């Protein structure tokens, strides 16, 4: 499942049609675009070939289901019930009868074909504008059969991009902390899964407490906090090889790690003598720099996408608030001034917003504000929730939410949720165990 083995042959058949369909993703979309995802057609020989290797009866259906599911969970599209489709998949892919698709109110149609050629999976798909009766896009991929889920995600990204004008976020993974056991003795493991919850895998055994994993935006490396040997320290993990190493040699607890946008530095906090300051360490030359120097708690640092600024959390005013400074620690400015406490600031990959957790009058909120602190907008309110992480296109936030226990202290749960920047489309992301501290990867393929 690495980038390397996914050999994508893009056979681009370019078409220049002025699309009539436009999906506006900047507003809350209460009328998702109705579209039809026709199952990818497959000849009997290919079907049998894939059934043998992948143990899936019809890989064409499976891939189209992935696309359909992705488009549905984006909240921007309404994939129509396949039972209403009048045209067979193979004929539709050759030449759709637009009147038929119009009849079931589909505004866009996705068709395609799967072939088993030389032990490879070849998938072509087409996106059609039903009202304009025109093809909008046609692409083909060839890859190893095991990559079939990723092909579904890449197709979803292409469709999303073509219809919204923005990059998608489906060919991505989520790293998170899996939680089990009683609240007073939680067993925590690092886990990783595809953005849609498939391919869940545990990366640590649960022998020591692990917290706050974060992806390197430039590679498949992860940084996280581990209590290995009861010494809470920031670690690096290479997901491909499983290699782990402690980051730097610090005289106290290091925590709250994140990568710089170029992936070359780790920024984190060091807690010592009752105060926490922010440090960076260059992963190549191992040079450590102290960025803040204040008797307060300075933590949860996050770089701006151009790497020039850092947002962080400090209680130097007396309570937890959000600050922005230059990347050398100069020019510190407080940006949160609303009622309540503010934590976990994280800079949007688009650069224009900072997402945060807010605590006010016993409720927790996930919200966003501009990088100067103006335009604060709260997206969701709950008993407990925190730690937003941005989708790589900056349109969706994933976070975790915990439930209140009953009078006997029972009923605790922790789950992952996502919400659109618009404040709409709030969804739980299913995980095999309880889950917290999610971090969204960059797009695996661009």
């Amino acid at each position, binding site marked *: 499942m690495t980038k390397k083995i996914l050999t994508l042959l893009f056979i681009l058949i370019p078409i220049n049609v002025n699309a009539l369909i436009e999906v506006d993703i900047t507003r809350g979309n209460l009328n998702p675009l109705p579209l039809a995802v026709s199952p990818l057609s497959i000849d009997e020989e290919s079907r049998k070939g894939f059934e043998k290797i992948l143990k899936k009866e019809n890989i064409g259906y499976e891939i189209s289901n992935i696309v359909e599911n992705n488009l549905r969970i984006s909240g921007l599209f309404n994939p129509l019930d396949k039972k209403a489709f009048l045209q067979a998949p193979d004929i539709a892919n050759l030449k759709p009868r637009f009147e038929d698709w119009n009849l079931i109110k589909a505004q866009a149609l996705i068709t395609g074909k799967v072939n088993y050629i030389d032990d490879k999976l070849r998938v072509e798909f087409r996106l059609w504008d039903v009202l304009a009766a025109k093809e909008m896009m046609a692409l083909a991929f060839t890859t190893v059969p095991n990559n079939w889920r990723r092909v579904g995600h890449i197709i979803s990204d292409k469709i999303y991009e073509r219809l919204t004008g923005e990059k998608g976020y489906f060919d991505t993974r989520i790293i998170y902390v899996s939680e089990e056991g009683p609240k007073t003795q939680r067993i925590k493991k690092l886990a990783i899964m595809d953005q849609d919850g498939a391919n869940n895998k545990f990366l640590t055994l649960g022998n020591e407490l692990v917290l706050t994993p974060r992806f390197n935006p430039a590679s498949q490396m992860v940084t996280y906090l581990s209590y290995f040997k009861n010494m809470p320290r920031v670690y690096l993990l290479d997901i491909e090889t499983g290699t782990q190493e402690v980051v730097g040699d610090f005289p106290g607890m290091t925590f709250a790690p994140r990568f710089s946008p170029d992936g070359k530095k780790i920024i984190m906090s060091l807690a010592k003598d009752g105060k926490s300051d922010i440090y960076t360490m260059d992963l190549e030359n191992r040079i450590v720099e102290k960025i803040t120097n204040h008797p307060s708690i300075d933590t949860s640092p996050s770089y701006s996408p151009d790497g020039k600024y850092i947002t962080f959390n400090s209680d130097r005013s007396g309570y937890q608030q959000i600050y922005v400074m230059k990347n050398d620690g100069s020019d510190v400015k407080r940006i949160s001034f609303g009622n309540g406490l503010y934590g976990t600031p994280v800079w949007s990959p688009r650069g224009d917003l900072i997402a945060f957790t807010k605590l006010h009058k016993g409720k927790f909120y996930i919200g966003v504000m501009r990088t100067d602190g103006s335009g604060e907008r709260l997206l969701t309110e709950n008993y407990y929730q925190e730690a937003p992480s941005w989708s790589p296109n900056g349109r969706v936030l994933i976070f975790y939410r915990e439930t209140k226990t009953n009078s006997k*202290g029972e009923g605790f749960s922790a789950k992952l949720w996502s919400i659109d920047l618009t404040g709409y489309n709030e969804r739980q992301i299913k995980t095999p165990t309880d889950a917290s501290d999610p971090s969204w990867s960059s797009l695996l393929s661009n």
Partner: protein
Amino acid sequence: MRLNKIFKNTLLVLAACLVLSACATKKEVATDIKGQMQGDVYTGTDTVEYLADGVPDRVFFATNESILTTASRETLRAQAAWLRKNPNINVVLEGHADERGTREYNLALGERRANAAKDYLMTYGISSDRITVLSYGKERPVDSGSNPLAWSKNRRSVTVKAN
């Protein structure tokens, strides 16, 4: 340096007194939940264990605070006396926070609480070589309840024998 530290602690103590007296005048002695909390701070003994006879192992804190209360200072003086009598024993001070705060901030807050206890032990003659500070943030609550009493039990620094 050392004078400085003592001075700092005196200030902390003064601050604690001020905070306490401020609370007291505001709402009489705010005792609630079956007399187990004073203001925001746990005063019960449910979760307390003992390092030795008369030496409680933990101190409690108000929400978002790391100031030592009068009772906490008494507990820590007892711990310091016990440590002076047992010069071969080293300790880990485990700092904790309640669940009503963001994870990373709470890790820092747990460290600050354990350090407040450490500083106080040091002013009573315990060498810093004998003390390790370890923060668990909100990761290891003793009470899994979602109510003010449970949270007050969880905001704590626990002194644990290291050897």
